[in-house]
């Protein structure tokens, strides 16, 4: 045990000797949480819209006004023909073109069912679908208002949407827990992935091998300083989230730390595994980069896991961030406790143990 202590001390010295590294590790995450706390929303606002109005009746003008009055659409141009709109769509100046047909107003009054055409730029398919939903919704509401005035007949259903747990769909409220996980991953996976490779690169690994320290103790010694560093990063980022972004904390802070402990353990072990497999720092860098992207993209942070093909859904079970993120969101937004979240805790523990075990095994083989 004493040898581990000495080793940990040595690693801490090494960290302290590189103030530039410490600065990046501590300040980088804070800046990123501040910047990106606002970013990740799929809500679509200010969709650049072109209205092609072949009708020019009071009805078509009223519809245009209703569209423009919402925060969803920003009417850039009101064209008289489709030719101008086509160019705008091609150049990316517009993402939505609403074509109001000739005799729209008259047909509406006579019950002839005019057709409103919506042209959408499908090259960004993801926001396109959301835009279409909004446009249809606004159109329905506009008709509903006219029904109320007795101008036309029934519009059928009227969806009344309500969102639970995060009523305003505020990005920051769920972004910050996610970002904390992401940044923690980048820092911990990267730093540990470099740890053993660098000893090898510098030729000091042989010296370590001839000391009586055991492989697992050496690994542990490598992990502990980064572990402490990871916890400092978490605390700073969380504090920023709660004070600046006003992320609600429904659940227990202690539980957040418990999960963070498990998560840091598993992502550090992953980094360590990379480090024992790689031969040069560049290899370690690219391998850990690959793992980072895997951890980020299949975590449910960007894309809901429910939408993925079966293979990826199963694969994502091996992703520690997936479980950590789920737990964080549940604790922060829903106030869930360990009675609900124990499967996530177990999964994190299992991933950490497997990764640590594999890297210890791998390391021993290398030594012999």
């Amino acid at each position, binding site marked *: 045990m004493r040898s581990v202590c000495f080793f940990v001390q040595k690693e801490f010295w090494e960290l302290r000797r590189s103030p530039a590294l410490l600065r990046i590790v501590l300040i980088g995450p804070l800046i990123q949480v501040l910047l990106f706390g*606002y970013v990740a929303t799929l809500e679509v606002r200010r969709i650049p819209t072109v209205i092609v109005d072949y009708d020019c009746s009071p009805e078509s003008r009223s519809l245009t006004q209703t569209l423009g009055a919402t925060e969803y659409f920003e009417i850039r141009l009101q064209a008289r023909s489709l030719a101008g709109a086509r160019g705008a769509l091609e150049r990316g100046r517009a993402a939505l073109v609403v074509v109001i047909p000739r005799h729209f107003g008259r047909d509406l009054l006579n019950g002839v069912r005019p057709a*409103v055409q919506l042209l959408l730029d499908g090259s960004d398919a993801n926001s396109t679908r959301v835009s279409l939903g909004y446009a249809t919704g606004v159109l329905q509401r506009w008709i509903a208002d006219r029904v109320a005035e007795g101008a036309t007949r029934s519009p059928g259903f009227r969806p009344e949407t309500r*969102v*639970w747990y995060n009523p305003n769909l505020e990005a920051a409220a769920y972004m910050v827990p996610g970002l904390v996980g992401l940044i923690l991953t980048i820092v911990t996976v990267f730093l540990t992935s470099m740890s053993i490779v660098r000893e090898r690169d510098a030729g000091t690994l042989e010296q370590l091998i001839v000391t009586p320290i055991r492989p697992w103790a050496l690994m542990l010694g490598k992990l502990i300083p980064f572990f402490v560093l990871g916890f400092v990063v978490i605390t700073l980022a969380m504090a920023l989230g709660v004070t600046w972004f006003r992320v609600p904390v429904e659940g227990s802070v202690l539980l957040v730390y418990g999960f963070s402990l498990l998560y840091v353990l598993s992502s550090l072990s992953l980094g360590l595994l990379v480090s024992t497999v790689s031969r040069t720092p560049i290899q370690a860098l690219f391998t850990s980069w690959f793992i980072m992207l895997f951890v980020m993209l299949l975590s449910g942070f960007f894309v809901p896991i429910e939408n993925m093909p079966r293979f990826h859904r199963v694969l994502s079970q091996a992703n520690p961030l997936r479980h950590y993120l789920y737990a964080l969101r549940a604790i922060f937004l829903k106030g869930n406790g360990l009675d609900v979240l124990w499967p996530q805790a177990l999964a994190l523990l299992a991933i950490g143990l497997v990764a640590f075990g594999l890297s210890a095994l791998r390391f021993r083989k290398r030594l012999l």
Partner: protein
Amino acid sequence: MERRVLALMGKEFRHIRRDVRTLLVVVGMPLLMVLLYGTALTFDVRELPVGVWDPSGSATARRLVERLDQSGYFVVAHRAASDRDLARALDERRIRMALVFPRDFERRQSRGEPIPIQVLLDGSDPNLAVISKGYIEMALAQYSQELAGTAPVRVEPRFWYNPELVSVYYIVPGLVTIILMLVSALLTSIALVRERETGTLEQLLISPVRPVEIVIGKLLPYAGLAFLDGLLILATAHGVYRVPFAGRALDLGLASAVFVLAALAMGLLISSVARTQLVAMLAALMATILPSVLLSGFIFPISSMPQAIRLLTYAVPARYYLKIVRNVVLKGTGPEVWWPELAVLGGFAAGLLVLATLRFRHALYDLEGR
């Protein structure tokens, strides 16, 4: 000048070639990523578990629920016995969306009044909530049109450039952007620091090579490698996922060259500032990975971001390149449409290169002084 640059390039190439495993990693991983993420990063909703609470017992409501169940987008996973039962199912995540029909469904229907349907969504995953909200509103609108038979207005949506809204089509340009950015910036970020750490920078210094030549000699081999990566990714996407290529390859090549140059220069700048490989690599990671994923418009629409962040995205080269790639690959437009983006990228490349060369010279003299 040329001979010296060539000699330096040859040296870098040997560095790359000598390390076969690294080469495999650099070339193989992007390919693996396209295969892995091409189909996974989709926002299409499929078989979303939905709960229903219908106290009206109306036949129309029942038909509506059946239609939703068969649409492929939703699966009615829970028929609640009370509204509290429905709430619990949402709480326990057995369902992600809940529909509540009004008690006076039939009376409203016979009177021709609008029928309010409550849609409850789980906001703890807002992205899924936003998307499923769009889906359910579309489905309800469509069904009420059919129901009324004489709905006042028909809506006819058409999607251009990607008529079936296939996700892979817009994910692939994003992946190309991120991978090019990362490979270029990461590779060059350690190029100089490594020389400094191994002490070979002094040797370069006493050689007659000028700083500009060192910079060019260091950049070109990695530019070639990054280019190879981009090409492989696009070919894989085309071959495996049938991503169309509407534009001209030459256009994309031109834009990619400018973008790769900007990214390489960025890595070089980091390399000339950082003192150790570790710091250089971490700085390059932090400066590229999250900004080019989050601020480029790859996944999250830029137009929805707050003003300050929108302004900030103008400083992210990936934003411009992504737009060009989407334009060329999906719309088939030429430089007459995206020359402003190209010009900005060119500005980035030139500015960063000048900065890196200046910094590099500074670093050399710094070394000399010691």
